[in-house]
């Protein structure tokens, strides 16, 4: 799916949680929201874009999410 759109949506989610005073919790909540609401192919395309093009355009909190929470966000392998 459109990488621009996925990155924009991810940053929007991060923007909400980044207002929380507990940064660790904010990173966790951002990842949790992505995990609970993004269909696997959205997460797959998101990570594929990052792998192919780098993390340009990601906000700080999303960079932390990608760095520390990627394993739990990875979608199941397609059979």
């Amino acid at each position, binding site marked *: *799916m*459109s990488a621009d*759109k996925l990155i*924009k*949506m991810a940053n*929007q*989610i991060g*923007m*909400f949680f980044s*207002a*929380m*005073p507990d940064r660790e919790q904010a990173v966790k909540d951002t990842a949790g*929201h992505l995990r*609970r*609401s*993004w*269909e*696997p*192919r*959205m997460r797959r395309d998101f990570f594929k874009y990052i792998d192919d093009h780098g993390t340009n355009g990601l906000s700080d909190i999303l960079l932390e999410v990608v760095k520390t929470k990627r394993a739990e966000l990875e*979608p*199941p392998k*397609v059979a």
Partner: protein
Amino acid sequence: MSQFNGIDFGTPASGATESVQLEIDGVDVTVPAGTMIMRAAAMAGIQVPKLCATDSLDPFGSCRLCLVEIDGKRGTPASCTTPVEPGMKVHTQTPRLAKLRKGVMELYISDHPLDCLTCTANGDCELQDMAGAVGLREVRYGMDGANHFETAVKDESNPYFTFDPGKCIVCNRCVRACEEIQGTFALTIDSRGFASKVSPSQNEDFMGSECVSCGACVNDCPTATLSEKSVIENGQADHGVTTTCAYCGVGCSFVAEVKGDQVVRMTPAKTGRANEGHACVKGRFAWGYATHSDRLTKPMIRAKITDPWQVVSWEEAFAYTAKEFRRIQAKYGRDSVGGLVSSRCTNEEGYLVQKLVRAAFGNNNVDTCARVCHSPTGYGLKQTLGESAGTQEFKSIEQTDVIVVIGANPTDGHPVFGSRLKRRMREGAKLIVIDPRTTDIVDGPHIKASYHLKLRPGTNVAVLSALSHVIVTEGLMNRDYIAERCEEKAFKDWCDWAAKPENSPEAMEEFSGVPADELRGAARLYATGGNGAIYYGLGVTEHSQGSTSVIAIANLAMATGNVGREGVGVNPLRGQNNVQGSCDMGSFPHELPGYRHVSDSITRALFEDAWNVQLESEPGLRIPNMFDAAIEGSFKGLYVQGEDVAQSDPNVRHVTHALESMECVVVQDLFLNETAKFAHVFLPGASFLEKDGTFTNAERRISPVRKVMAPLCGYADWEVTQLLANALGYPMNYSHPSEIMDEIARLTPTFHGVSYQRLDELGSIQWPCNEEAPDGTPTMHVDHFVRGKGRFMITQYVPTDEKVTRRFPLLLTTGRILSQYNVGAQTRRTENSRFHAADLLEIHPQDAEDRGIREGDLVSIESRAGTTALPAVITERVQPGVVYTTFHFPESGANVVTTDNSDWATNCPEYKVTAVQVARVNRPSEWQEQFQAFTDEQNQLLARRHSLPAGE
């Protein structure tokens, strides 16, 4: 008054808890204190003659028919205006009273046309009944002399009812209904004495007056003066069926008055808890679409959308669809198909569609149009309070002291609730309106808002943050409530954040445009004015920060202790009839019924056991994600029940591109709607009059929908879904929707106590309804929040990306109008189009002048997404810099202009903020011309539809 709508007790119930004992005609009667004698008598089965009294209106005491005698009291007081007293001995039938009543009736009848046999109201006329009741046998005055009926001119201007002043007895019931129930004050009694007459506005006809055609006056007319044209045409019904309106989220209860299988009229049910006998122009009158000639009643298929339709049997349609979906899944993967179910469908239909997707398609790609309206409500209220639903029943507003309406226009979008709101205001409640437009509730007959915070579109969170700041920094919080009921640390974090200077009204004024002193005044009023209740609509949710706004609203309510009792609360005004229900039923791609996430293995196991299938644990695609995936090439098949995404969803060109990218689009609908023009399979649908089921309104009230006529296509919608599932090899064998509800109740804790039998017993049920609340739950979060402790959350204001620029200097916001409903597929096929025949662009006089635009000019509206053209209306309802339109007509292309920006949490589209430029033009936009050409082509393909020869 409808003969199928129960007893008319003559005067309203008193509502008092203390009792009074008295004697009426020798019968001991015990009634609540404050009850009028007329009602007390009716409660004992004693009917006192009456004409100007009816139990939906306050007593008036003008007709002098209901006179009674009371031992120890002089004269003959009117029973409708005399309250009961302990030990009172009342006589309703005496020779003196009989003589008086006969004299009164004689006068009435001396000025009434004696055409009973050919009169519309024959057999349903209170004047006729009273003549019989008092034993009128002669009219001594004769029929000579001046009268009102020989020269009366009938007003037939309204499309739904006539006004015949020649039959009017000037009882004032219509005038009082317009004032007391509807709150429009469109009617009055003009002149005095013999010249007295009912007058719409200042001697206008009904269509030319302020009348909103709610039908309250027609309902309360005791004669044929105000008569439904459908009754004039068809005669009176032979039976009535209580059912639920299929329009907005108020969910009014109606009696469908039916002759054979023909609906003669719909009258609001007095026993309906949501509407208590009131209605609006849509539910009351706009039901003719159900039998409109545009209805398609046979299944059709075609390989390409450029092919003519082929009419096929149901079996062929199901076999073709199943084969196509299985082919697509084999080629592109299990997740390449999905389903949408409209929030106009019943709970049972919604439940079956999500079951079909999860069990037969084998994925979670199911969504509902609640996605594009109230999905942020589900998220925001679940996070803060613990349940994805409003907290009150509508009646609760009778206990409210300060009403806050944010991003909602109840007198247009939720008219029956709007009337409740106005009534409460006339009783003294204060109102705060937060809206970019001046809606009718801001300043109307006998109502005026204390504050209208006329914010810039897209700045709700800025305003709500400022209100929070005032409440926190001025110490207006309910500390005891918070300490007892809310999470301590989350509250402290929120307080620290709200108190920051950048959240002050003075700082936020720059963004919102709302003067700081008004923000401060409104915050103080809400926090200190007594019971505060917040009502909000799509003006809150349809933003990039929609969920943030819902959370901010919940924060305000918790901070002031305004959740958990009558008169307060957080109340989403749901757009369509079953938005609440479709969400409850698991129509979202990440939640099973009852708002349980698909990753919850215990819940999944429950459904896997019941459905005998393994369920996917990953969330599915939301509607906008489906469109993106379709364009990208991984989503190829869609089953759409009752939605019209090609009109209702934002960025229409993106949506139609997505539909064109799919290989099998299946549309189940009453009409060939805009989406069906991109479909490969058309399955005919059934209207709410043609099936059984339930709707759940904005109060969480589950109400019965009852079949009054057979489905024109042969099947109710739930049967179609079931047969499609069977064709896909997943067995479903329900014989009645009640069995579907039984399954829902079995698998959903908040529905454990719901059944069709209980609905028949109680009339309607507000969930949760289970072992702890066997009769349902009118008020939620009493004593404690559903989630345990209420959770404050920080709601930082983030300006939308949709910003004004030199190229796009205005902000477009969209909304609804009273007479049309959503995409208009229903109301456009009724006489309601006479009230609103086209979408128009509202523009401020200054902005119009700057552009040389005059009233009625065709103007282009151009955004980053697209361009359309509409006639302009110049009005100060909108502020400078803001333009507004509705989206009820597909050719208007309002959603060609809106963008695919969406709410961060739920992807609810940002319909309410689009940066645009407006300019005079002399022709429709390119999109509109293409739309017209495509529509013509599709209509041709429909007209050329043919049946396949046998064997092909």
